């Protein structure tokens, strides 16, 4: 059951059609978040947010208009519809190519993520206790260094959507999520500081917090990072084999396979914001970007995932998509607009962050396909190499080609085994440089959460990215200047 009368959305769609729209869509969305923030085990903030409203989208004389309101009455919604229509019409003289959507078999469905324990169990009191415990764990895990700052943030998010459009879609969904964020700074009088952020987020109920075993994870990370901080050496200057840990691989495939395979970027719709793509439409199905190990999958339907959905915000049923398949650029992410332009069908990538955001092409859960080796087998014949397990700094250019990841927890590999820690190794590499140098992947598929930013105004949507540990041949690492 939604908190909103479905009839208001259907009325909005009908009203927009009456006013001349050739397509109309009304989406009710309610995002409720709550959480706590602690600093050094003391409460700094406790709060909540409710974003609730209706976003309407229309195509009028070939122009696309979007308007959002949180006045949930016929009067308020009508004002939004008329703003969408009249302001889109006001730019019609500049229009060269009418905007059209692909024909799709849209759905009529209602689904809800089942929880084992309700989100309400994660009260401010409970989360504060957890934050205190974790801070204590961090402080008791260090031996020689000081911990001047620990930030802990945790909370719940409940997202409800109801999408109705003039093509017959009616999709209702309820997706709860739980989130935790820990940042700490280690300090040493001679060595300076080291900083690490650990994030967890997934769809599900209060049970997720326990499943993350945060005390164990944090304790292990702090102990390892203290060693890296105090004893880390510079990485070798010569070309070596580099094993990129799944945390880095996950981010890397999000940035260098997910984003460049968004069809709206390929066609230029985000050109002035998030940028375009090195992938051009004529490369699809033909261009070799990497070795046979370069298979990157995008799948919104993974149960429990952070980017979970079964129908997108245009009413199209979701399914896994192979962005890169065995080294070949394979299938872009489409909404109904780019699908029409490229003569194909939508693969359900349209998502909106909140009621006030237009649905645009987004990733959900993106990962590199794992293999069948163990980690030990992956590194057993490396005489000299580096394993980069985690990172802090990263970025990539606006064509999704030139990228950089600065390792945090990292180790030398000597004669097939992990050896002394390495400090701040820099992997600066092109997209083709990465995928075409993969010589092995292990079997450990791990996912990491993120908030992916795109659009104007910027929209942050929850995603997962992941992969196995990946071995690259003949890579020259850099160091921080």
């Amino acid at each position, binding site marked *: 059951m939604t908190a909103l009368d479905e009839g208001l959305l259907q009325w909005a769609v009908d009203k927009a059609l009456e006013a001349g729209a050739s397509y109309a869509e009304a989406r009710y969305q309610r995002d409720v978040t709550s959480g706590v923030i602690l*600093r050094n085990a003391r409460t700094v903030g*406790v709060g909540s947010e409710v974003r609730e409203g209706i976003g309407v989208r229309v195509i009028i004389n070939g122009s696309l*208009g979007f308007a959002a309101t949180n006045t949930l009455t016929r009067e308020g919604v009508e004002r939004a519809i008329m703003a969408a229509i009249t302001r*889109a019409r006001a730019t019609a003289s*500049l229009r060269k190519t009418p905007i059209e959507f692909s024909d799709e078999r849209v759905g009529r469905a209602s689904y809800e993520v089942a929880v084992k324990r309700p989100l309400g169990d994660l009260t401010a009191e409970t989360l504060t206790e957890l934050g205190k415990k974790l801070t204590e764990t961090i402080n008791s895990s260090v031996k020689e260094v000081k911990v001047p700052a620990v930030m802990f943030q945790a909370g719940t998010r409940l997202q409800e959507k109801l999408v109705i459009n003039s093509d017959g879609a009616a999709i209702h969904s309820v997706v709860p999520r739980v989130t935790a964020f820990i940042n700490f700074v280690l300090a040493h009088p001679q060595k300076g500081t080291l900083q690490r952020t650990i994030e967890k987020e997934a769809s599900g109920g209060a049970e997720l917090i326990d499943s993350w075993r945060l005390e164990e994870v944090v304790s292990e990370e702090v102990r390892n990072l203290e060693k890296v901080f105090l004893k880390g050496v510079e990485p070798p200057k010569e070309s070596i084999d580099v094993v990129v840990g799944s945390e880095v691989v996950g981010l890397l495939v999000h940035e260098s396979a997910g984003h460049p395979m968004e069809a709206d970027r390929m066609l230029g719709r985000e050109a002035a914001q998030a940028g375009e793509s090195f992938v051009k439409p004529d490369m699809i199905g033909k261009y070799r970007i990497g070795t046979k190990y370069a298979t990157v999958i995008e799948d919104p339907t993974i149960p429990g995932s952070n980017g979970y959905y079964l129908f997108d915000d245009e009413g199209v049923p979701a399914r896994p998509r192979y962005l890169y398949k065995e080294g070949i650029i394979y299938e872009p992410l489409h909404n109904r607009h780019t699908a029409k332009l490229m003569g194909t069908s939508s693969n359900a990538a349209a998502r909106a962050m909140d009621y006030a955001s237009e649905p645009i092409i987004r990733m959900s859960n993106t990962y590199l396909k794992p293999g069948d080796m163990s980690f030990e087998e992956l590194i057993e014949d490396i005489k000299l190499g580096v394993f980069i397990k985690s990172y802090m*700094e990263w970025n990539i250019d606006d064509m999704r*080609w030139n990228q*950089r990841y*600065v390792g945090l927890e990292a180790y030398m590999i000597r004669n097939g085994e992990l050896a002394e820690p390495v400090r701040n190794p820099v992997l600066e590499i092109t997209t083709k440089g990465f995928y075409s140098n993969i010589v092995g992947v292990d079997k450990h598929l791990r996912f990491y959460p993120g908030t992916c930013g795109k659009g104007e105004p910027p929209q942050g949507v929850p995603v997962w990215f992941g992969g196995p540990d990946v071995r690259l041949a003949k890579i020259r690492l850099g160091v921080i200047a």
Partner: protein
Amino acid sequence: MVTALELAESVLKRLEGRFDDVAVLVRQRDYVMVKLWNTEPSVTQSWIDAKVSVLVSRNGRVFSTELSVSDPDAVDNALRNVGEILTKLEPSEIYAPLPEPAEFKPLEGLVDQNVLKAMEEPGKYVEEMIDAALKEGAERVAGTLVFGRMTKALATNKGFRGMEEGTEVEAYLRAFKGEFSGHWAHGSRVLDINALREVGRRAGMYATITNSKADFTPGKYDVILSPLVIGNLIDTIGWMASAMAVMMGFSMFMKVKPGDKVGSEAVTIIDAPRDTELAESTAFDDEGVPTKDKPIIKDGVLVNILHNTGTAKKMGTESTGNAGWLFPTPWNLHVAPGNVKSEEELISELRNGIIITNNWYTRLQNYVEGIFSTVSRDAALLVKNGEIVGHLGRIRIADRFANLLSNWELATKETHKIRWWEVETPTKAPYALIRQVNLTKPPI
């Protein structure tokens, strides 16, 4: 329709007897945004909505909430359990009672009627921007034009009442010619057609400034950074000047204190809430403290960390009028100009080096050390003997903020009003010449 202040007062009335502190902040907006791709609109978006933010406290226990509603009863309803929640919390480390109201001097000229008219006919202004870029020889453009009106009202149980209405224009364009591109941006409270044309002209100019490509070898270079790049980097530095960023370990200012030297004498960065040309200008902050312009860094010396009353109490100082209830932030930023008469003269001063006209994706390995990198986009130009000789493609600044501020040498006299996707805080910035900046690019 009730005004924003009436709505704030109505919510306050329902809550004030139940808590020690109550602040109600209402924001109502009517905005329109035309987004362009391939020299035509991709979508025209509008927002007509309201947001009510409420801060309550009892015995030092604090709860804040933000609700996208316009109905006081709905706010009351959403807060019905807060009293009980507060009893289970511990006092906030940064609690301070809301301040007694001080008289604030309202800002004049925040509303431009021309912006309100333009909201219903954005097409013709978009056309002016496009035409200016095409005249420079650009083949296609993408970008954004925003017109909007925002009303902000604050009511507190200490008796503060304030309401402000302001308009905004944000415009940016990216122009393409073949594989090269240029970008420019503008942000203001007023509609200035010449400024919009200048967005198109400069974007087109950088896209077409040379047809040549130049080779690049990673290393340290003398660089000129455009106001867009300065704006992006200063955005991060301004954010790190927040007392909460300092307390949380997210700031390069954690290891220094006001009075310490953090840059060359040429560096002055000012938080400028009373600059009515920029879109975040405001006479009072979210706690009702009157705003004032103040340096963050003056002549290379750290002068002010930005505070609300809570962080100020914790650090034994006074609020700087930068609340944010939890996180103080800068309003508008000024980067002080230098003495160089023109961009051409600055290029002559550079003699040999690189001009970076735009960037994005600034990320930090370590906030406390200020270790960061950022990637160039659009024109990154090699200069030899004072002449631009070619595009370098996409390169990366990978350095420390401390180095950039210390090696900052010269800046142009003229500053530019910048706001766009990668410069969130409205900023006035010059072109600046910075020596020995570390630049990188992937080997494969």
